[in-house]
């Protein structure tokens, strides 16, 4: 259920270090927002599209991943045509598509553990200040991945119980028990973590 959007491959972006990709993404967003030239945006769009299509996703999957955002972008472009000059609309639309494509390309070429390593480094200063522990962040992340399927199974069990008891399936009577039962596990899970000596209280 929770498989990453990473795509196995060896494209240019796959070989770039994570940090370079993230810096490029930030630089690109700032740069494109500062520029009002449709030509600059168009070039960025073509480059981003080229990078995205080179990551190794089959075309169908590649389109599916950005399809939703693109749909909304086109719709807005259509609305904007009534409100703004056409050149501005072109700038805005190309800029947005370029950013979305480049971001999707970064996501598709970076593994979760590469991200995690980078995040651990980024959190370094905060850790030295004693604000948090990087190990806690990766623990929390692991816990989410671990418990989503359990919570989903529980959600289905509660739904089934409604049906079995001839009760209407309503969000309210599902969400209440789901949250209480899930959060009640927190005590045991926390005890298990402490028992294995992972962190001090």
């Amino acid at each position, binding site marked *: 259920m929770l498989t990453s959007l990473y795509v196995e491959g060896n494209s240019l972006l796959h070989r770039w270090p994570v940090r370079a990709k993230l810096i490029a993404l930030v630089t690109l967003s700032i740069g494109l927002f500062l520029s009002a030239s449709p030509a600059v945006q168009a070039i960025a769009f073509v480059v981003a599209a080229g990078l995205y299509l080179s990551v190794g996703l089959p075309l169908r999957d590649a389109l599916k991943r950005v399809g939703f955002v693109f749909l909304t972008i086109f719709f807005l472009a259509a609305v904007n045509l009534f409100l703004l000059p056409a050149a501005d609309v072109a700038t805005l639309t190309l800029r947005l598509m370029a950013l979305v494509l480049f971001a999707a390309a970064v996501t598709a070429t970076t593994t979760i553990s590469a991200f995690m390593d980078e995040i651990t480094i980024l959190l370094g200063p905060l850790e030295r200040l004693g604000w948090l522990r990087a190990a806690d962040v990766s623990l929390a992340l692991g816990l989410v991945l671990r418990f989503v399927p359990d919570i989903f199974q*529980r959600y289905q*069990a*509660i739904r*089934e*119980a*409604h*049906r*079995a*008891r*001839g*009760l*209407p399936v309503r969000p309210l*009577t599902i969400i*209440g*028990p789901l949250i*209480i*039962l899930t959060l*009640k596990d927190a005590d045991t899970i926390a005890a298990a973590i402490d028992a294995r000596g992972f962190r001090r209280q």
Partner: protein
Amino acid sequence: MDIRFTECAVRFGERVALHPLTLTLSERRIGIVGLNGSGKTTFARLINGLVKPTSGRVTVNGLNTVEDDRAVLSEAGFIFQNPQHQLIMPIVAEDIAFGLKNRGHSREDIDRRMQAALARFGIEHLAKRRVHELSGGETQLVAMASVVVTDPKILILDEPTNQLDLRNRRRVADTIDGLPEDTVLITHDLALVENVDRLLLFHEGRLAADGNPGDTIRRYHEIAGC
């Protein structure tokens, strides 16, 4: 009871949970045993229509579990392997009343039936308690009360004595023995099914034995290898 399986099979995706099966159940007390994952819960869920057959059909007292699924649900009550998932309202009394409210009973009628259900399981003192603070044994008893209150004719119980101590196990077992409803009881605790009228053994999605408890339990020991 009169439950008929006709060439009934269940698949979950690729995985066959139950191979085609033809069978009629008419005894008052039916037991079901088998290894983990052998298909017991799947079989029991077919009876009240929580699982639909991938092929073939199931009828309960003449009602088809696919076409008449609502009627089947009120015919056969189900107590889940994890009864805490089954308790939906925060307070015991509210939970027991919940099923009746939805069926449009009057307030007096609800009260009367609720008191009767609580009394039947000896849990009047729990009426005002919070559902999730109950101990394991108490949760079991409340789950049973909240199901029998709607008067099903058949009760299906999926491993009702897990995590229970000697006393609560005895109490739940006695309660089940005394139930006037027809029962289908799934369990790993063989003592509970020593006296049923008919004991089924599932193994890898097939019926591996079917008959009196003594023979079926012997076969079960063979299959389990101990």
